[in-house]
Every structure is written in structure tokens, then in C-alpha cells.
């Protein structure tokens, strides 16, 4: 088992080490998230009821945009310097190596967003319980964003103007995650309980974790031709 997973772990380690050498990239995405979330209360005005209502959606949309920010660089540098070729020629499963890269992307881009979200939620006057549900929904949802995003990044690899294309391709696919993620808090506030939404979000996560690395690998092989 550990032999099977070893290339996966190596791939995660390598991308984390690279991210550690490029700290600005991590910080940029995180600050983007913080600033967008902060702009909303300033623009909308200090009405606690309204803020409480838009909070889940605002945080979710900001998380979505922050993920999109670093997505273009998920495969592009490895494609440019030939690392992707070596990965495709590895006797280990290319899909596992790609899955490792996606996990590393989530650890770098998604996890900080999840961790800082409760703090930002405070300024929207969310209750403790709502903050908890929001954090859980982001914890389940941000990996979906990385997984689906990886498919888009692989499909647009090497295409000119891939940034805009990537957004057009990926944002519609984020809709289910957005609906169930942001909806969990609203459902709870309406007295329905968050379980249904969170279960659907978890199901989405399982499905995308199963298919996305594989689809991204197929797209990468085409891009390498």
C-alpha cells in the first residue's frame, strides 16, 4: 500500500516544497479572498440582517474566485519546463501523480481559505453555529473546487488566453458546489438543518475525487502530444 502511494506522497511533497519557495503566490490568493470578503460589507452598508443573509454566499463566491486565481499555474510551469513529460513517462501511475498535485493545490489554496473563513464570518454577524456550518461546508467544498478546476486547467493547458477560457469553462461547473455549500447555512437558519446540503456536498466531493484526477490526466496526455 505504501509502495502504491509513495509516488502520490512524493508528488504532494514536491509541490508543497515548490509552494514554500513561492510564498507570494499563497499569500496573494489568501489576501484576495480576505479583501473581496471585506469589500462586501463596506459596499452594502452596515445592516446586520442583510449581512447575515448574504454572508454564506459572499464567502463562498470569494473562495471560488480565490481558487480560480492560482488554478492557471497548476500545470503550466510543469508543462513549460518538461516536468509534465517526465511525469507522463514515469512507470508510476500518472493519474496518482496528478492527484498528488491536486491535493497539494488544495493544501496551498483551499485550506488557508477554510481556516480564515470563520474569522471573516464574524464581521457578517454570523452566530457560532452558522460559522461552524459554513466552515464545514467550505472544508467539504474547496477540495471540489480544486478537483474540478484541475480538469479545466488541464484542458486549457497550452491554449493562448487560457486564463479567461478557464474561468468560462470552470465557473459554471462550480454552481452545484456553490448552491449546496452556501445553502447549508441558509437551510440551517430556516430551521431545516444543514445535514441534507452537507451530505450532497460530500457526495459531490467523492464523485469528483474519483473522476477528476483521471479526466485531468487524459486531458494532460492530449496536451503533451
Amino acid at each position, binding site marked *: 500500500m505504501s509502495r502504491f502511494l509513495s509516488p502520490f506522497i512524493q508528488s504532494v*511533497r514536491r509541490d508543497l516544497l515548490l509552494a514554500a519557495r513561492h510564498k507570494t503566490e499563497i499569500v496573494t490568493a489568501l489576501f484576495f479572498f480576505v479583501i473581496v470578503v471585506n469589500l462586501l460589507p463596506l459596499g452594502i452598508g452596515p445592516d446586520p440582517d442583510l449581512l447575515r443573509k448574504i454572508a454564506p454566499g459572499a464567502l463562498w463566491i470569494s473562495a471560488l474566485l480565490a481558487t480560480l486565481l492560482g488554478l492557471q499555474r497548476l500545470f503550466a510551469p510543469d508543462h*513549460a519546463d*518538461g516536468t509534465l513529460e517526465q511525469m507522463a513517462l514515469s*512507470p508510476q501511475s500518472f493519474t496518482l501523480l496528478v492527484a498528488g498535485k491536486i491535493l497539494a493545490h488544495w493544501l496551498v489554496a483551499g485550506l488557508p481559505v477554510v481556516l480564515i473563513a470563520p474569522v471573516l464570518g464574524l464581521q457578517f454577524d454570523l452566530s457560532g453555529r452558522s460559522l461552524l456550518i459554513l466552515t464545514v461546508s467550505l472544508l467539504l467544498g474547496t477540495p471540489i473546487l480544486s478537483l474540478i478546476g484541475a480538469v479545466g486547467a488541464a484542458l486549457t493547458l497550452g491554449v493562448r488566453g487560457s486564463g479567461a477560457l478557464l474561468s468560462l469553462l470552470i465557473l459554471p461547473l462550480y454552481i452545484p458546489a456553490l448552491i449546496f455549500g452556501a445553502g447549508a447555512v441558509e437551510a440551517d437558519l430556516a430551521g431545516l438543518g444543514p445535514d441534507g446540503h452537507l451530505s450532497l456536498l460530500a457526495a459531490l466531493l467523492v464523485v469528483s475525487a474519483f473522476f477528476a484526477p483521471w479526466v485531468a490526466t487524459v486531458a494532460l496526455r492530449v496536451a503533451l502530444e
Partner: protein
Amino acid sequence: MLSVSHLTCQRGERVLFQDLSFELPESQWLQIAGANGAGKTSLLRILSGLSEPVDGRITWNGSPVREDREAFHADLLYLGHQGALKEELTPLENLTLSLGMEGFNVSEDAAMQALHQFGLHGREHLPVRFLSAGQRRRVLLCRLLLRPARLWILDEPFTALDVHAIGFLSRLIETHLREGGSAVLTSHQSMTLPPGLCVTL
């Protein structure tokens, strides 16, 4: 043994080569000659399995490469034009991490020794972006020492190397051939290797 039959490669509208057949037995090396743009790199990429030929068949030890990709890639070491080196990592990290992803856990000592053999004393912990083109090439060539493989496919391996490194690499290829390995390479330089096969595109 690598055998290729009736290979055709097309780039856009242009047919680069067609009906190309050859066999490369063990302990032999093959030079692919041809002018710039003749399709040497395209051929190497097809041989390694990175791109698909329009037509033709490649087998490794009797089994088609496409059907058993992982077994073929376990025997294959491909060094392309691009470095596959990360500028922000040190040579040591580059080697151990890239080989780790291929399932070869190389100890730091072994990687250090390979770097020393290629004359990179004192550069082991320097980020690759501070190295010259020739030094980067040497880091890349360290893979030949660290990763066991029976078939080497090398695209312009002598580029940017000085006389000393060219000599070392030639001896390395000779040893590889003596031990029953085989190699395919392209080069515009004259080489001091034992006589091998040649395909001109």
C-alpha cells in the same frame, strides 16, 4: 529489443517521415541524424510514448508499447530538450524529488555522489537558477547514474557540455551498452562512441 515498423509521423499537413522501420538490439546504439526540423525530436517523442504516430507499430521486447505502457516506462529513461528542472529547487532536491515521483527512492548520499561525478562539487545546495546551461545539463544527466533503465532515449545529450563532460558522458554511454543496455540519441556533434546504427530522416 526495440523494434519499429512502418512508422509515419505527421505534423499538421506536413508528413515528417513515413514507413520508417528499424530494430535496435541490446548493447547497440542508434543515432538519428537529420537536418533541423527533419523530425528527430518528433521521432524520439513517439518512441518514448509521449505522442502517437499516425501509423506504425513500436514494440519493446516483443510486446507493443502502447498496451503495456508502465512496463515499458520502467525500462525507459528519456531526456528531452527541456530540462525538467525546477529553478527554485537545488540540484539535490530536483534529483531526489523527480526520481521519487518515478518510484525510485534515491538517498541524498547517492544523489550527492552522482553530482560530484558530473563535476558539480559545491553546487549541490545552490538553487538551479544560479547554474549555467552546461551545469543544468549535467544535473539532468545525473539521472543516468541514479535511475536504472535498459533503454536510454537522449535528445541532444551533448548540447552545452564542455569537453570534459562530453568525455564522461561518452564513457557512461559505453558502459551502459557493455552492460546490455541500448540507447537512441540525436546529436549534431561528432561523438567518440563505438560504431552504432544510424537512421537518417
